[in-house]
């Protein structure tokens, strides 16, 4: 779960909700989607919570390659 990107986790969450809303799903499958869904929602929330903007400066080095350095803004 931890390795999922926000997009992936969010898409899977949408799928879990859709699956759960199918009334014909057996109860144990429904519980599974519910628990999966809740975990995915937690993961999305925590990704948003922990996200930190990274600021870098780019320049051309003497050998012509790109050089990126983190800067403090």
């Amino acid at each position, binding site marked *: 779960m931890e390795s999922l990107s*926000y*997009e992936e986790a*969010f898409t899977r*969450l*949408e799928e*879990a*909700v859709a699956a*759960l*809303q199918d*009334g014909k799903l057996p*109860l144990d499958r*429904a*519980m599974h989607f*519910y628990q999966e*869904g*809740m975990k995915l*929602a937690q993961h*999305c*929330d925590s*990704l*948003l919570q922990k*996200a*930190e*903007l*990274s*600021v*870098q*400066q*780019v*320049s*051309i080095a003497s050998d012509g390659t*790109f050089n*990126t350095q983190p*800067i403090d*803004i």
Partner: protein
Amino acid sequence: MLDYTDTAAVVSVSELSQYIKELLDRNDILQNIWVHGEISNYKTYASGHCYFTLKEGEAQLLCVFFKHARARSSAPSLHDGMAVAVNGRAAYYERDGKLQFYVDAVKLLGEGVLFQRFEQLKAQLAAEGLFDEARKRPLPSQPAIIGIVTSPQAAALRDMVRVLRTRYPLAQVLLSPSLVQGAEAPVAIANALDLLNEHGEADVVIVGRGGGSIEELWAFNEEVVARAIARSRIPVISAVGHETDFTIADFVADHRASTPTAAAVAAVPDIEDWRGNVRELQQALYDTMEDRLFRVGEELDRTKRDLHRASPLKLIDDRRQQLDDTVERLHEQMRHTLSLERERVRGVALQLHSLSPLLTIARGYAVVRRERDQTIVTSVGQVQVGDTLMLQVQDGQISVEVRPFNR
């Protein structure tokens, strides 16, 4: 060179200022003179007074156009870049230690050079189609990397980073630093933008700076900058810190923001919305599950009721109920029957009563008895003359003697 220990030669600032002021005030030419140049840094204050710098060549003159003077003059509305001739007096302003020109009248001399160049370039690039709406690309909805071309020291950069950090911390910012004013700025801006394009990873680029005078922003009106924006493969947001005026960069860019902060807002979505979406889905999960469990619970109850209805215990209960009902009916019957019986008995009693000899006696008949043996006399054969008979009437007995009788 004067020796400063020669105290007679050392004057105070006030004294020198006074001296200079009076020197200028005594000069007739400076009291009423016409000067031409180009307006820049034009500012009007709420007081109605306005200030600007008159430039020409390498020289400049600070001008003040007071409200009362403006009201009296027939000068049109002024702005930066206008070539004008001003009439007034030059005087030394002691408090600020500067020379000021107090304007009484203004005459237009036609558009300034700067503006002429601006209009020409604008027309040319428009004719080439660089401003066309069709050219403008949509901004990416979820940019992973945001390029910025601006001065690294500027407040504009700090403002943009602050907005991005709050609104969309998932992104990365890639700064391509550049001068943003002065003669070298246009080429520097173009190079910085080209660099981001060569690097190739940014999804959108903000090109801009904070507010300033028309000269300070002028780099963004230069052709070299316009062409760099036009050839950028990455969509460009121009952010030249001027609410109302548009620079040429603004016309060419894919999106124009009035300030760097507005540019940062336009560049990225707000993760607060994303948080909202996640919460909505969580709520949907919860509601759906709860609904499901509720329905399952109801089904269970229904089944329990069906089960109960068919169960032997229920059967026993039913039977018991039937028994109770039957017993009750039995009692009812009994009570009813008894009641009928009582009625019948009462009826018979009444009949009996109606047949009672006492009633007969009341009607005038008497029970006749022989006094000697109390036998009831029903026939003449039972009596002889001289017998004593007792007649029982309803309220007593009458003693009588038999006299001769016949059958």
